[in-house]
């Protein structure tokens, strides 16, 4: 009963036009009736009309029969119409939109984000189209940074939450055995440029099993429809939170779609030489799960931009053909036709980046600044790609 009411409720905005149309039909039928009566009484019609006009049925039953058939047809028409509906999106009428033959979504998705740095702000623009978005900040980051930055953008429905109230330190072991911390500004340090991380550890006195995780972190993961990891530094923004057993357990138990947004470029000293598969392997290694989807930038990068990045020891993270596994994902819709499976995750290639001109200042010499052309995850493109993934399987 509730389902019927809800479906018919979609016609709420059509009640008046429908009533008017119904009145018009009734008057039209009346006019037609008069005309037919006139013709019937003035013209001599062939005998077949005796049967066509049901004159062998008593007049009262004829009326009842037509009423039943008429009401039945009307109900069928309204029922059919209620699945092809008009919804005013905004009550002020400024941006009304007509949706025909719509797909009903009972509520907007709840999103949990594991990311950090500017990448978190890239995703926060999704806030307008979600029921709620909880951004879980990296365990070593001060949360004020995110609130300060996001308050400039007027985000809605977005909250930033720390996994643990006490920030925790993270240490990386590089391939040469050296132990470094995020505070060492690894990507900026030329001496680390040719190395990459082989292990990530929590650095501190607290045992990892004793870490108390905030309830909102666990609840947001448990209640999410989609969990997005990235965009952001794999080792500095995503992996640290996966070191906490309670978060790992919550992720494992969550039935949400898990989407990893792969970096556009490698990070010197952290992911030097990493491919898409290498990125996914780190998630599997530390998180204990393979993301359902991995978003990879498919946009061609200008040679000029590539040269700038190469000078900074960075290379694009593309999906290499040799990483394709045998299983090609069967197309479940038109968009998914070219997806491939890598390390147990469906890799979706999409245009995710935009080249922007950025003014960079040196911390050592604030007066010295220069403009460079850099690639950044584009908030709108990333949001569109995530929405495309969310539509799958609905």
């Amino acid at each position, binding site marked *: 009963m509730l389902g019927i009411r809800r479906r018919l409720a979609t016609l709420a905005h059509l009640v008046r036009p429908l009533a008017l149309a119904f009145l018009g039909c009734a008057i039209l039928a009346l006019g037609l009736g008069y005309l037919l009566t006139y013709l019937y009484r003035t013209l001599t019609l062939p005998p077949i009309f005796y049967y066509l006009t049901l004159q062998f049925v008593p007049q009262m039953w004829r009326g009842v029969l037509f009423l039943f058939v008429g009401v039945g047809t009307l109900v069928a028409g309204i029922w059919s119409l209620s699945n092809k509906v008009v919804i005013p999106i905004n009550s002020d009428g400024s941006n009304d939109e007509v949706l025909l033959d719509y797909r009903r979504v009972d509520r907007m998705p709840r999103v949990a984000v594991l990311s950090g740095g500017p990448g978190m702000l890239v995703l926060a623009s999704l806030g307008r189209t979600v029921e*709620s978005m*909880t951004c879980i*900040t990296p365990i070593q980051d*001060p*949360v*004020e940074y995110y*609130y*300060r930055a*996001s*308050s400039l953008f*007027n*985000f*809605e*429905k*977005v*909250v*930033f*939450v*720390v996994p643990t*109230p*006490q*920030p925790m330190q993270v240490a990386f072991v590089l391939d040469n055995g050296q132990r470094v911390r995020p505070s060492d500004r690894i990507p900026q340090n030329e001496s680390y440029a040719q190395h990459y991380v082989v292990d990530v550890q929590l650095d501190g006195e607290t045992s990892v099993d004793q870490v*108390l995780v*905030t*309830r*909102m*972190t666990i609840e947001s993961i448990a209640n999410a429809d989609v969990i997005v990891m990235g965009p952001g530094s794999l080792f500095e923004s995503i992996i640290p939170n996966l070191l906490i057993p309670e978060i790992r357990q919550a992720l494992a138990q969550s039935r949400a779609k898990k989407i990893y947004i792969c970096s556009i470029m490698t990070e010197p000293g952290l992911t030097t030489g990493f491919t898409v598969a290498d990125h996914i392997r780190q998630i599997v290694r530390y998180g204990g799960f393979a993301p359902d989807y991995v978003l990879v930038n498919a946009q061609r990068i200008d040679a000029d931009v590539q040269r700038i990045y190469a000078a900074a020891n960075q290379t694009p993270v593309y999906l290499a053909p040799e990483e394709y596994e045998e299983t090609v994902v069967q197309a479940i819709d038109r968009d998914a036709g070219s997806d491939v499976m890598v390390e147990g995750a469906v890799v979706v290639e999409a245009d995710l980046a935009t080249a922007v001109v950025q003014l960079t200042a040196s911390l050592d010499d604030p007066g010295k600044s220069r403009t460079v052309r850099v690639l950044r995850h584009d908030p709108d493109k990333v949001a569109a790609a995530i929405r495309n993934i969310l539509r799958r399987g609905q």
Partner: protein
Amino acid sequence: MDDTILLFEDEGYRSLLPLTYTRTAADIRCGIFTLRERLQARFGQQPAMMPREYLADVLGAGRWPLRLLSRNVPILLVNSRLLDITCLESLTSAPLGTIIVSDDNNTVAGGGTLVAARLSPALASAVFADLLQQQGQRVLNELQRFGQTVAIRPRMLNFPWDIVEANAELIASDLPLLDPTTFIPAQHHPNASMWHMQAPERIFVHPNAQIESPVALDAREGPIVIGAARIEPFSLIQGPVAIHDGALISGARVRAGTTIGPVCRIGGEIEATVVQAYSNKHHDGFFGHSYLGEWVNIGAMTTTSDLKNTYGSIKVTVAGYGQVDSGRLKLGCFLADHVKLGIGVHLNGGSVVGTGANIFGVHFAPKTIPPFTWGGERFREYQIERMIAVARKVMSRRKVTLSDAQADLLRHTFQMTRSERDSM
């Protein structure tokens, strides 16, 4: 103090309805100040606010106030229903993670209410979403996992009658928070010799107060504070009493435990009553142990009872609770914002009149009148646009403009309270 003071609402605002439909508990006057004013007077900074979403525009708080956690300073979380702020004195220097919990069984939550807490921005972020939803119990449960709890029982607003009960005491305790450069001892006022004063050392007046003799100011039972108000001849004022700037006392008897908010007009007799602001009870008639919201107008000879003939305790209808025994022998009525009562209306003790109700032509009003009710012999729903048009007129007479946000707030409240008028 560098801490960011952040006022939050918990589930308890519901038991203060209808008074809190259009304001937070922190903006209900009790004593000389509202909680918001009291915190500003004590700590020298305007507290930030996390109100219900529909109140945010009017309060200028922002519907999604992310900036509140943007500074790297401790957050002093304060419950909007807190009245006595002395418990905050030690909290401002307490370690981060200190939580004050009321163990008062009379509290709305039925035991354990978050009163205040001093938090790092990180810990505050863990309860930010719950604070935005007024989920005080969830906030408390979460904070207790990480912090140190201090159990005390400060005075809080749990039910509407707590405003009346706490008012006299708070007038006295608010006295040290008055700006000594603004309020002078009454003896120093140039016209002081013309006033009849008892215990003058407990009377404080604004230099611009116009107090016209003959007038009697009796502070033997409690202090009297008079702002830049006008007191007309033949007025009797018995402390503890606070009269704010712009108020007009027209030969009235203002008895102990009364606070008259800014730009109110008071005549007749009033006792142990809080008049929020911009309200008129200009004519004869008695109001005792009552609360009058903002933009309330009381017709001549309209009177409330505050004592039953049986001397029994007075019951009040509280939203979500039904009839609640206040346990008080003396209790008047509670009028929410924008209530208008015509001439000669009699109200029983414990009456509650909802926001925007316009009552006239009735001798005895019902004890509970839903918000936006119109009429007397027969009650109808007050058409919201007509109500707003009246509010505009009323406010313009005091040179105040009803903002679009305020009009939207009234419309929202109207929609929200529609079910309360179903039985009409």
